[in-house]
């Protein structure tokens, strides 16, 4: 049976396409860009890699109108950044250019320089990923990858995996509230809270496993194992230039990685 077009058509909230110099890019292009920037920040040593990537992230974030969304990602890097700054500044091996001394340890200039470069690299990496995450909903990425031939199983795994964390957190909160209602202490000392993890983790794990069985049957009842390609709902237009640029970026990133590993980029500051 073939149906005609429904008068209501594909809803706007499904068909939506974003606009703007960055948001016009296909999700796959954004993913390639994010991974390239993250790799570039790590493999190009010194100041060049992280500073170039940070400048690019700031520019793209401005184009994509992303503002405060970066804050949680920056906060997430904070423990690592602080530990890198402390350890490298005070315990840098073989460094003799002492800036100042506190008790038995001395801060060295070369250690501090390396620490700042490493910290910038971590921040650049985090913000590259954050830019992608903040601008590209998972369903858009999955739809774009499916349009390019990704199978239904990997597409489902990708989509479900991204949604798993918030779902488990929600379930954990519900279980914790239920356990608290039965008198479990989850808010006093660390030791007591640690003991409270066991009655929380048990139902969470068992529930998650049971959910998998139910969900797989429900999916099977909706033809998940049907042969052939799934219907794609969204088609985001993509010009030849973008396609070429994406492949160019992949090749350029691979070249930079090889050049860096081979030591051809040591001349960069």
């Amino acid at each position, binding site marked *: *049976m*073939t*149906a*005609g*077009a*429904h008068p*209501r*058509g*594909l*809803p706007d*909230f*499904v068909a939506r396409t974003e606009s703007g110099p960055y948001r016009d890019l296909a999700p796959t292009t954004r993913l390639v860009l994010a991974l390239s920037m993250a790799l570039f920040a790590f493999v190009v040593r010194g100041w060049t890699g992280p500073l170039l990537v940070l400048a690019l992230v700031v520019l793209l974030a401005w184009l994509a109108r992303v503002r405060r969304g970066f804050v949680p990602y920056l906060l997430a890097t904070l423990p690592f950044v602080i530990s890198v700054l402390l350890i490298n500044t005070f315990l840098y091996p073989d460094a003799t250019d002492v800036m100042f001394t506190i008790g038995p340890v001395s801060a060295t200039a070369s250690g501090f320089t390396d620490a700042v470069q490493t910290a910038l690299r971590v921040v650049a990496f985090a913000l590259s990923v954050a830019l992608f995450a903040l601008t590209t*909903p*998972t*369903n858009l990425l*999955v739809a774009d990858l499916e349009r390019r031939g990704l199978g*239904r199983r990997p597409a*489902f795994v990708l*989509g*479900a995996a991204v*949604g*798993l964390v918030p*779902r488990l957190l*929600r379930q954990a909160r519900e279980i914790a509230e239920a356990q608290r209602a039965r008198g479990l202490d989850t808010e006093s000392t660390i030791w007591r809270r640690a003991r409270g993890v066991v009655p929380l983790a048990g139902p969470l794990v068992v529930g998650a496993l*049971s*959910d998998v069985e*139910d*969900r*797989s*049957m*429900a*999916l*099977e*009842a*909706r*033809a*998940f*194992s*049907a*042969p*052939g*390609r*799934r*219907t*794609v*709902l969204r088609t985001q237009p993509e010009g030849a230039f973008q396609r070429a640029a994406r492949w160019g970026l992949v090749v350029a990133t691979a070249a930079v990685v090889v050049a860096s590993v081979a030591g051809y980029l040591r001349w960069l500051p």
Partner: protein
Amino acid sequence: MTLHLDSVTYRYAGAVREALRDVSLEIGPGHAVGIAGASEAGKSTLCLVAAGLAPQTIGGRLEGRVTVDALDTSATPPHVLAQRCGILFQQPATQLSATASTVWEEVAIGPRNLGLALDEVIERTWAALAVLAIEHLADRDPDLLSGGQMQLVALAGVLAMRPAYLVLDEPTAQLDPAGTAMVGRAIEGLAENGASILIAEQKSDLLAALCQRIIVLDAGRVVGKGSPEEVLADERLEEWGVDAPAPVRLRRTLTAAGLPPELVL
């Protein structure tokens, strides 16, 4: 054209005892058949067997024959069966795919899995939402709905597959009274419009309102069958672990209080 179970015995993989024993039933076009029974009586197993998920998807051993419009469920691929016989489970949340960001996309998953033309996916999705009168939920996040709304979305997802038969496994068991009423009304609407339904349910009032025929299971066997009036008024109902519907309980109470039976409706 019928959904037909012929002397079906089924045992789960690794189980010692059969979960169903020598069960036969038939659902014709536009018929609604209810399955009553206590917990562990075999109601959910019967639903899985009727929908073809057991043994094809979950394993186990089936004796006898299950056919959906003459297709043997043991030899028909699940995606083909899914277009003939849809199944709705108890838990609303775990029936959702966890990958769709809106209700509309959730309901469209089945037709998309079939690889239908986009126009047909759109038509089926809107139609399924319209049948259950939940078009207003189309742009909502499925994970943030109430239990009753989630169950309706799951049902819409099944309806979008356009199955000839609906198997409903205690669709209101996990719902609060408001959700139960919401889903109950929707299922009654489907039955009034001629859907062929096999429904397992603890709530005998819903079975009485919905079904032309009821079978009662106990330890996997059919121990009672007939019209709702016959089965739900049977003196052995409580013995089988089934609560009598409210009118039957009222009638019994009045009779026990000494009211002459001819005066009790």
